[in-house]
């Protein structure tokens, strides 16, 4: 039992991060039908911006977080202009490859900017009070923060999509861009806004996850792969399904590491995903079966 609780909490925390990243990616996917391969690098860049602000300029942590989120919002919107807008109307392959190009550029730019050495980002909690003890298990407070923040984000996003004018417009954009335009949806703005929001969400995931590991260029990439796996397991487009799948992936990874093999822990979620693809190609929770890739 003393092994079980930390594994459970870490698993849920990791699943939460995966869920936020997956939601950021679903936002773009829902609005434009594009699978964005630069999503993980948005997280990485967000973490680096926060590191830069705190270590090089002595900003306080909350302002650094806000800076990261704002900067990434702008970069997301810019990427929509550079790598997506000129290619709309072309095959979706073309768009996806250009998001790969954007990912390469972001990674290389980070290395040029901050160098290849790993950094670390503070957690908002004082050094001596990093953990709480629950049921005899020491749980890092950062993990609780991650879980709480994810719950807030998920609820807000679902409300945003289902209840607001903005959400309706995004869904209209997703189902038919031209008709949405005819109905007075400002499609150009909406596209930029969704890319920006998605990047900002990823940046938030980035600064949350950064204190739990070292900040390197690869920070976001692994999370992105798990987020893709979550999107597939949850059946693309089904927000609740994707969140559940993300938690499942976090738990599989942690319990796999704790009880089966820590060296192969990273691949258990992917094996699970391949099994699901083989058995139920539409994902566990149905949803939209066909991604427009």
């Amino acid at each position: 039992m003393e092994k079980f609780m930390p594994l459970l909490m870490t698993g849920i925390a990791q699943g939460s991060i995966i869920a936020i990243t997956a939601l950021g990616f679903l936002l773009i996917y829902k609005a434009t039908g594009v699978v964005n391969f630069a999503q993980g690098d948005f997280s990485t860049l967000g973490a680096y911006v926060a590191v830069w602000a705190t270590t090089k300029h002595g900003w306080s942590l909350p302002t650094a977080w806000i800076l990261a989120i704002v900067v990434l919002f702008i970069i997301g919107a810019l990427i929509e202009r550079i790598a997506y807008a000129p290619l709309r109307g072309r095959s979706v392959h073309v768009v996806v490859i250009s998001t790969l190009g954007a990912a390469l550029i972001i990674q290389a730019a980070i290395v040029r900017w901050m160098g290849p050495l790993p950094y670390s980002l503070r957690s908002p909690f004082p050094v001596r009070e990093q953990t709480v003890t629950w049921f005899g298990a020491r749980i890092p407070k950062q993990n609780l923060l991650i879980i709480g923040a994810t719950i807030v984000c998920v609820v807000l996003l679902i409300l945003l999509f289902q209840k607001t004018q903005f959400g309706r417009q995004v869904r209209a954009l997703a189902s038919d861009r031209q008709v949405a335009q005819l109905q007075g949806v400002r499609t150009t703005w909406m596209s930029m806004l969704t890319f920006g929001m998605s990047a900002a969400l990823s940046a938030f995931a980035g600064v949350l996850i950064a204190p739990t590991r070292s900040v390197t260029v690869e920070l976001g990439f692994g999370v992105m792969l798990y987020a893709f796996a979550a999107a597939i397991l949850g059946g693309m487009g089904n927000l609740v399904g994707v969140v559940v799948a993300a938690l499942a992936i976090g738990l599989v990874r942690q319990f796999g590491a704790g009880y089966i093999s820590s060296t192969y822990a990273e691949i258990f979620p992917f094996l699970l995903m391949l099994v699901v693809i083989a058995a139920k190609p539409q994902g566990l929770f149905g949803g939209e079966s066909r991604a427009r890739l």
Partner: protein
Amino acid sequence: MPGSSTDAALARPPIYRRQQYLGLLGVGLISFGLLSIVQSKFAYGLMQQWAIFSILGLGFYLVFGLGGQFAFSQGAFFGLGAYSSAWATRNLSFLWGVGAAIIIGCLVALVFAIIVFRADHFYFAIGTMAFSFIAIVVFREFTAFSRASGEVVGIPKPQIANHAFNTDYKLSALLIVFMLLALLLVILVERSPLRREALALNHHSQVASTLGIPTGKLRLLMFVLGSGFAAVAGALQAHRTGSLSTEQFSVQLSIDIFLILLLGGIGSIYGPLLGAAFVVWAPEQMRFIANYRGIIYGAVLIIVMILFPKGLVGIFEALWRLIRGKRKTPEDGLDPLAFDEAAIDGGANAARP
């Protein structure tokens, strides 16, 4: 029989007019010509790497260019081939190593392709990405014959019968011969009905299956064949460098492979050769490119996608057409990347009753 010769001439598929065998001869002459003028060890190294990346790119042409399958697994199969050959040549000769790479690479590709057979485009792409990731972890942790973190050293240089390819010149020549063989195989596919069936599958999957094209088998075949090419390239790389480490086979490599195919030109068999030449040669020639490698590669990908969807080959073709004043053929109008979005999914569903 009178008239039979004209009938035969009419029956020749238009693809034959592209004179691929002449092209093969041209590529052979150019590469051996280059080989005879290079002198430095450095230049030999570039030639060798070019030949290997060309094989890798030709394989990806089969998987993605013809097969239309958005796969990130090419780098992993490259690694699988390298490790297979390194394992086999501990006791056996070089050719057995290449054979082992082909057999293991194709078998794994087949099993993987069957597992994700029903997955549609995006799921397939992520599945191949996950496969790459799994492969890297396994290369790193599976230490039956490699040292810690997947390092293998002391892989022998190629030797066929009693002839050792131990000098830079001989090794380069051998690799170029392998590349020409790979090109020949692709040309055979190109001139066979496989090419047009694959194109039909990609651009109009429903029509293709109603015409009786075995769409599912065709997809499997293209994936397995292309992955086999990658495995051979990996085996050659292992024997060229003599050592292996897992960083060589990351997802990054798979992105480089995209660049090789897309920059060169996805719609042509010569595209991968040109793209590989760029990827190998450009960073070495221009410090500027080496320092900003990722940024430039990314920018090149985006610019090629926006402005030159047919890559370098497309630019040359346009120039050639301008010189000869020829009209466009129907195939010129096809966007090489405008695959039928339902191709994979629709194809698989149509194949099932």
